[in-house]
């Protein structure tokens, strides 16, 4: 066999700083997203102002503002990570907001310190009760996501329809069974979110960061993560390459359910209660928006966990900015919509250029 001619090494050009930026702009899909985020953060910092007695005070205010932003968005941020995987397979999940309330309600019933508390009734209290609750709620989330996944893969129901149906069912069932019912969550449970590290209440942010890191690894290095992209890129080719397409999809929806249940635990432990008719409404749209702003293609085959984190932050910082500017609440959604469209426009441009 003739040895193959060694491929000509690409000519390494010396690039000026500007040329380097241009190169990254058109070659790194996340670069433009990162630039947008940096601009937003600079704007936000300027808006916050420097009207403080000392640098220390300014830093304190700046950090507190950031911790607030991150903590408020940790739940939906986690959901957006799962949504990224779902969209990468070419699917969508509209049911996340309703899954949030049904798993949240389940958590509260398990924990309730009153007469109808399920675990309390069995005589389990304290830390064991909290541990069992976490495990059961996550299992419930996986089960619900798995059911949606089976409907989509075995039942051949389009993801949009399957999750639209699940969205209505989950919320309606939750609302029916929680009518006129007040639950009290044990204070130990609240520690899950309110435990302070060095005087900072950042537990939800840590959960978000850990999950993002794990999913980043999954998407880049694991068989499951790469098969997700293969399925979204060309389902038929993936199947003919030995990928069990149905298994991949099923696992993606189950993972989505798990992540939503984690978001539910965070929300319940943060507030101590949940408004079952309003919590999680519009969450699916926020999650989709974050994924799309972060460079995920709605048709599947392309998506970035890191991009979704950036996307979530962009939307969060923008909300914060609008708040600081005093923009009326009803107008804020319009800005969110605008930023989603602009983000996709910019990505299209850099792909063509």
């Amino acid at each position: 066999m003739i040895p193959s001619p060694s491929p000509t090494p690409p000519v390494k050009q010396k690039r000026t700083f500007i040329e380097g930026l241009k190169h990254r702009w058109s070659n790194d899909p996340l670069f433009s997203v990162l630039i947008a985020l940096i601009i937003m953060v600079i704007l936000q910092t300027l808006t916050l102002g420097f009207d403080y007695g000392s640098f220390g005070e300014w830093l304190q205010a700046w950090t507190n503002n950031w911790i607030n932003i991150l903590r408020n968005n940790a739940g939906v941020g986690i959901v957006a990570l799962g949504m990224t995987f779902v969209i990468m397979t070419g699917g969508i999940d509209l049911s996340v907001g309703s899954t949030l309330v049904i798993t949240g309600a389940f958590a509260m019933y398990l924990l309730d310190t009153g007469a109808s508390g399920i675990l309390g009734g069995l005589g389990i209290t304290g830390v064991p009760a909290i541990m069992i609750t976490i495990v059961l709620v996550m299992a419930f989330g996986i089960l619900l996501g798995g059911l949606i996944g089976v409907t989509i893969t075995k039942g051949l129901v389009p993801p949009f329809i399957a999750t639209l149906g699940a969205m209505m069912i989950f919320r309606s069932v939750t609302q029916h069974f929680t009518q006129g019912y007040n639950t009290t969550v044990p204070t130990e449970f609240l520690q899950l979110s309110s435990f302070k590290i060095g005087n900072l209440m950042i537990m939800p942010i840590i959960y978000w960061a850990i999950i993002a890191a794990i999913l980043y690894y999954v998407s880049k290095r694991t068989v499951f993560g790469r098969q997700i992209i293969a399925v979204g890129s060309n389902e038929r080719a993936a199947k003919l390459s030995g990928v069990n397409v149905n298994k991949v999809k099923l696992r993606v929806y189950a993972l989505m359910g798990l992540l939503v249940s984690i978001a539910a635990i965070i929300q319940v432990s943060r507030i101590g209660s949940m408004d079952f008719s309003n919590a999680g409404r519009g969450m699916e749209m926020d999650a989709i928006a974050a994924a799309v702003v972060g460079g995920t293609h709605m048709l599947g085959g392309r998506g970035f966990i890191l991009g979704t984190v950036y996307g979530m932050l962009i939307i969060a910082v923008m909300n914060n900015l609008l708040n600081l500017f005093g923009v009326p609440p009803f107008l804020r959604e319009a800005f969110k919509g605008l930023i989603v469209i602009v983000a996709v426009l910019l990505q299209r441009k850099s792909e063509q250029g």
Partner: protein
Amino acid sequence: MKIEMQHIVKSFGSNHVLKDVSLSIQGGEICALLGENGAGKSTLMNILGGVIQKDSGQILMDGQEVIFESPSESLDAGIAFIHQELNLVNDLPIYENMFLGRELKTKRGNLDLKRMYQKTVEIFEKMNVDLDPRRMVRDLDASYKQIVEICRAMMMNASMIIMDEPTTSLTDTEIERVFQMMETLKEHHVGIIFISHKLNEVMKICDKYFVLRDGILVSEGKVSEVTTKELASYMVGFDVRTESLRREKEPDDMGEEVLRVENLTDAEHFRDIHFTLHAGEILGVTGLLGDGRSELFQAIFGARPIQSGKIYLHGKEMNSKSTYEAIKAGIAYLPRNRKENAILKDMSIFENASITTWPMFAKRGTIDTSKHQQIFKEQRDKLQIKMREWTDSITSLSGGNQQKVVLSKWLATNPRVLILDNPTQGVDVGAKEDIYDIIIQLAEEENIAVIVLSSEAQEVIRVCDRALVMYHGVIQGEVRGNDMNENMIMHLATGGELKIKRREYQS
């Protein structure tokens, strides 16, 4: 009505598709237009149908020169082109389909359904079609869809109808129905140009024939004066253009049996398939479009369900329900239509080359990149894949190199049976030769049993030890040695043997 095409020349870039072709067709005649794939049939008809423009030459209608710059101009002149993919909307009733794009309207601008319905009834009566115009097109079988298209052409006063392989996807009774329709058209003095590969159909229905080969009209005449054997030899030419790459080995000297298939059936695509395959053997499977060979081998690969029959791998019955199980068992399948079935456009060259083996080498779910790099490096050198960076997108490669990358992902699975479906599709000449060399090397040196599915008889003759010829989902015959020539293959692929049987039955 008489149509003459004179000295038609057409090239696409440096590819001379039509080199001075002249032919003439009268109204009331059914003319067969024959030729192998790539002979220039479709190009010639697309010129007549106004789909593409000729480089030079003339088209005359009743002696007057005409120029068609678009399909609608050609249609206005009375020439209707019925394509293989029918132009009907499944979710509308027949009578609305009849007026698609030129709907009848009432004075107020609404659709005049009543008049459209009546007109359809009239034309159906004229053409002896017994069909309720209110039926949905979705519910019609393929032959009635053809008939609806023909009636639509008649309603627009077509005097010449071009039919591009109309019988490919039809059953025998459906073919009869279309033939009856063609006879009716003939009675109405409409000319028909019938593009087909099926010579027995040509013998049955056509009056005249034209044979194109490599852009030249090599033969024409009356069908009553030729035999199918003669037609087949006109189509392929007498000269064998390239030498066979076949080895000296006789098919019987091959290694142990690797794959045995018994009674395999999936009523829709293939029936009662039997064959065996030995280690180190190269088996060709050929036939015309719609012969069911891709479906058959996809079923063996576990990508389609099987209704009945058994598959034995190394003497043990195989029951793979998924493609991954088939891969683990040692079967590899390189699909046809690379772009639709094999290329993951969002992934890199390296990932496209390793997707099949990710689960095999993974450690706790994490892909073993260094192992895959090592395998891919070997494959890249062996297959001589030309590329710059492994991380470049697969779409940055030429067709031939893309195909080699796809092949490399299958060789990485260390297959015992390698099924190659149209392996040289969309590949340039140089890469084609490379792929032939690779196929022979795999069989010779690694003792892999290779199956080459191909619609090009040349390809099968050049690389295969023996070949199965399929026709309408059954194996029509097996050829080897001196019998493995283009005439014999074409004869079988057009249902040749079947015709002889019928004749015996009739006499």
